[in-house]
């Protein structure tokens, strides 16, 4: 199992800063190649933008696995525990009634509720985690390039690197390199 520190690092690795350089590339394949070059150059503060998911992007960018499945698992187990506690509290302690000649603790009847609550807790926690950890829903952010939401692909690199260095890393992969303020 990973340490708590690693989990925390994994959860909050998203860069909020926008100042730097944005280099547009022509195709998804170019974006993969560009991502590989930037990663190999050892740059820390950078990101890729694409209007569609690209297979192999995680490896090219050197991204580790998302922690969101673990959040889903923990909340699903929490939901299951709450479900079984609640229904068995009612049936055994608070309001015991014999239904259809079955015992008070009728576990087969609990399974659907257990399942539903696992799905409900796991599902809503996952959506919440995606929104919170991805810092989504912020409307004041300006787009770094208008084409990356329709047909353009771009690499963003933080301003700790000079424009010349960016051009040197990307070489002729970059269509154009512009500054983001």
């Amino acid at each position, binding site marked *: 199992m990973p340490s708590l520190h690693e989990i925390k690092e994994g959860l909050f690795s998203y860069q909020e800063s926008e100042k730097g350089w944005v280099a547009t590339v022509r195709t998804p394949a170019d974006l993969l190649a560009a991502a590989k070059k930037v990663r190999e150059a050892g740059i820390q503060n950078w990101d890729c933008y694409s209007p569609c*998911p690209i*297979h*192999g992007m*995680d490896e090219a960018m050197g*991204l580790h*696995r*998302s922690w969101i*499945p673990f959040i889903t*698992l923990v909340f699903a187990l929490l939901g299951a525990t709450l479900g079984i506690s609640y229904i068995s509290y009612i049936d055994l302690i608070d309001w015991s009634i014999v239904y*259809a*000649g079955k015992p008070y603790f009728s576990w*087969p*009847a609990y*399974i*659907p509720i257990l399942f539903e609550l696992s799905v409900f807790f796991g599902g809503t926690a996952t959506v919440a985690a995606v929104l919170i950890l991805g810092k989504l829903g912020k409307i004041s952010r300006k787009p770094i390039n208008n084409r990356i939401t329709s047909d353009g692909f771009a690499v963003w690199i933080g301003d700790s690197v000079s424009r010349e260095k960016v051009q040197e890393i990307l070489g002729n992969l970059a269509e154009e390199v512009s500054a983001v303020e």
Partner: protein
Amino acid sequence: MDSFKIPANINKILFAFIGIGAISGALGFLVDPQKAWPGFLSFGFFLLILSLSGTFFAALQMISGAKWSVVIRRVAESTVAALPVTAVFIILLFFGIHSLYEWSHADVVANDHILHQKEGYLNTPFFIARVSGYLVLWLIMGYLLRKVSISQDTTKNPETRTKLVKISAAYILLFAYTFTFASIDLLMSLQPHWYTTMFPVYTFAGLGLSGIATLIILVVTIQNYGGLKEVTAEHMHDLGKFLFMFTVFWAYIAFSQHMLTWYANLPEETYFIETRISSGFWKYFTIVLWIFHFLIPFILLLSRDVKRDGKRLIKIAWFILFMCFVDVVWLVFGGLEHDGHVLIPLMWMEAGLFLGAIGIFGYTVLQAYSKAAQIPVGDQNLKASMNFHQTH
């Protein structure tokens, strides 16, 4: 593209398995024929679901237009090669109808109103005709699918895929009906007074699960001996997900059947589960089945790393395959009685027959697999399959 060369030591192991199966089968019939017939039925049905599963998987991938699975399609199509031998065993089972099924006894039927009413369907000639019919249909469709698919290796004609989709669609439809009725005829009619609407779904869940487990075992074994280099961790991951899905599906169907029976509490429905969980040997057998068939594989397969690692996945697949056989034994033996006593399997005979089934299936399928190209080289989606990547 070279075809796969079967290593000599694999054949030796498979022949040893067939030998063990033959000896334990023969011994079983010598020691106790009353218990040997149900054991033989378990073996026959297990071999049947293994031989059908590959063609079903290939047809399913074909009609859904899946691209990732193209590299493993040839392995799935090869499983039909075990069907002719299986058909021989099923035909041998016809000699045991009288020992296995109570509806085949004229005196029992005459004194039993329900069996008397069901006689139009449950009678020996119609039973033999039906089961033989299913076997013929499965053999024709399975070999047709394989033949057309192999023809594309040389012609490289993209139109072949359209033809394969049509055959697959017909196969899926036929398979749904024939397998439903085959399950009812071969296994459910062992307890002809029992009513349920979910039995064929349950056997189908077993077929899917053992089929995927078999596919994983075949793919990883072939890879260990230098074949199927195109299959990567990405494909193993999807096979692992399939294995996980069918593990959960099996539990879902088993539980659904159990819960509905439990709620309604009708005598004609409950006695199936009652004979299996109320007392003694079968109570522990059922608990072991539920834990080892669902709970342990479920927890093991939650991990992503396990699903991507063929070496670990094949161990789980072997375990699941064995539990699928135990499940068939549970279905066959659980409700059987002889002279008022609950019938308990011989155990050693079933264990031997399991190895025998593996030996027969492995030998015939690998022989067929080694006769054609390892992957469908003429398929237009092959490249997409080889470049397949999972997203995180």
